[in-house]
């Protein structure tokens, strides 16, 4: 029985189709999902998501989010999902730099929302960068 995987971001549906397995970057560590998995809802942290789709392993760098797993499907909701080709090291580094500068300038006691958001950007960008540079 195949496993249906949906990866959705606020901008678009990244992937939807049958897969053999999925590896998710859960907050407590990587989770491997095979068909007939028990119902599971997990928070995701920025990291690498892998899935085996018709014999080929695909990898994506994803941001934080959630995944809902049932015996036949996996729904991944995340704020971003990028393939290796879509990650531009310079842009990502610039984004990290910008977020860090902004983080230094906002008042941490007053603007907790902004701080959390910027920390999110840094974590997400760093994960994308690590993914792009792996094996180098």
């Amino acid at each position, binding site marked *: 029985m195949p496993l249906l995987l*949906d990866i*959705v*971001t*606020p*901008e*678009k*549906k990244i992937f939807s189709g049958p897969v053999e397995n999925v590896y998710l970057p*859960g*907050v*407590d560590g990587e*989770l491997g999902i095979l068909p007939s998995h*028990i*119902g*599971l*809802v*997990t*928070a995701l942290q920025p990291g690498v998501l892998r899935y085996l789709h018709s014999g080929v392993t695909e990898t994506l760098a994803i941001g934080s989010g*959630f995944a*809902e797993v*049932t015996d036949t499907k996996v*729904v991944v*909701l995340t704020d971003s999902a990028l393939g290796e080709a879509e990650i531009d090291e310079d842009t990502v580094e610039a984004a990290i730099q910008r977020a860090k500068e902004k983080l230094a300038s906002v008042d941490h006691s007053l603007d907790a*929302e902004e701080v959390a*958001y910027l920390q999110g950007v840094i974590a997400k960008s760093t994960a994308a960068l690590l993914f792009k540079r792996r094996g180098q």
Partner: protein
Amino acid sequence: MANLRDIRRRIKSVKNTAQITRAMQLVAAAKMKKAQDQALAGREYALRLTEVLFSIRNNFSQESHPLLERREGNRELVLVISTDKGLCGPINTNLARKIRLMTSADADFVTVGRKFRTMAEKMGRNLIADFTVKDPVPFAQTRPIAKFITQQFLDGNYDKVSIAFTSFINTLRQEPEVVTLLPIEGKDKSETRAFEAVGGGFSVEAHRNDPVRDYVFEPNPAEVLKAILPLYVNYEVFQAISEARASEHSARMVAMKAATDNAKKFIKELTLEYNKLRQGAITAELLEITTAMKAME
């Protein structure tokens, strides 16, 4: 009957109006495309988020999280997404009518968009906050709004928070909607979210018949709820604003197109009348000349 010069003046003024409405139509059309794309792209995510909440509904009771708690009271807060500018057809008046029908008479308002703010003031309703968001709406700007209404709910100032906006159906159709945002109805969610009804009501319906499952939560249920519920509120506000913006630009485009067409029709009619009058005058003159000539003979 109007004289020639009056008609000429009117043609000129109508031409000017047509030029302006045509320019506004083109601007609205460009913005409309972008706004529609954003609204449609966001629906999938909003829908999936709702689905996840819906499928884990039976793993929680109202006590699991303060945002789920249903209260006895009747104090209502309505977040209204209207437009900043006018000339966009009937969408603001339709929204106001829907609000009158669907919310309690003493509800307080939080507004996004200038139009409903002035309406609420005229109606003498209580306005507790007003937010301004850019166009197209960035996600970051909706967070303070979501935070504000969540805080009002958590502080116990209100027992129910609704959101009123214009749901985008297609370029020619937009529907005003009022939906309950808080408390989040984890169990027995009977009303469909507006964009579900539009974009994917079918799939939620299908989901509804699924057997209730028990879920395992990572790291634990409380943590998952703590993260997913505020995200849901945030995202719902964001999607509502995106929908409202798509509706606004579509409505304006259509309204301006109609105005341009009317102006063109009017110019045509006026030109016809102008030519008739001109021809009449020439004929009259010729007649006078020939009569004079005949008289001289």
